[in-house]
């Protein structure tokens, strides 16, 4: 079985696709070609590692701030707004 081949400049074809490769958004043929290229291209592998680190940073390391608790008055307003919307849903012509 032959592997899908890349064109003259494989790095320039592969690099824009690396995020989609990590996200599982590419077809099997493209994944196979990329895996094969990464095994032999240190530069592209380095970019790949950098992308993974960036994703991890955004997922795990971004600071988390808690919002201030909502006041009783604000909660009451939100509840009222919901009731009005649900009543409109029940009876759209009212």
């Amino acid at each position, binding site marked *: 079985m032959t592997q899908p081949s890349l064109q003259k400049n494989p790095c*320039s074809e592969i*690099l824009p696709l*690396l*995020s989609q490769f990590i996200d599982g958004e590419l077809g099997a043929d493209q994944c196979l070609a990329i895996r094969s290229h990464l095994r032999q291209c240190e530069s592209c592998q380095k970019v790949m*590692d950098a992308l993974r680190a960036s994703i991890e940073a955004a997922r795990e390391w971004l600071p988390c701030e808690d919002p201030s608790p909502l006041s009783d008055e604000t909660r009451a307003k*939100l509840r009222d*707004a919901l009731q009005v919307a*649900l009543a409109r849903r029940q009876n759209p012509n009212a």
Partner: protein
Amino acid sequence: MEVVDSAERPEVALARRLLEGDSEAFTPFVESFQSKIFQYTWLMCGHREDAEEVAQDTLMKVFESFDQLKDPQNVRSWVFRIAKNYCLMKRRKSVFAPEREYSLDEALPGEDGSVLAAHVVDTAALPDQELLRGELHSHLFDAIRELPDSYRSVLLLRDREGLSTAETAEILDLSEDVVKQRLHRARIALRKSLSSYVAK
């Protein structure tokens, strides 16, 4: 009979219960979304006070228009779409908004492997113990804030909130191809920024 997916996300189940008139779902729904919306608006607006205001405006709009939520499955993208619109409105009123938003196409090297690789530090230079430093949190905050809005929102929705490409495209009124391209460039820009922090 409507089939309810037993593995559906908690927010979807809460939205479904609210639409069915279950008032006990109100508090957990508010608590779940208030925090998510605030994280997004805080990282989009950059100022706690603005983010609090935008998050509350978003929650109010969500409940005022709850009858317009057609499918509870879409509740996350529906809520974030409202949050995105309020962030945009806040930004238009802000005196700090830049006159022109730059594109990461201008800021990043081309898609040449060796050139691009030279701009990102070797991952070995960013070990876990380095990541554990508290100051990284503030640097990461600054690095995210330095991204142009249109790239930052894609990165936050995809990598922070875990929304799909299709959901993100729908929230931001973009094509899926544009979402993929901006996400890729935002990830590289973020890593490049973190690389310069480690190199200091």
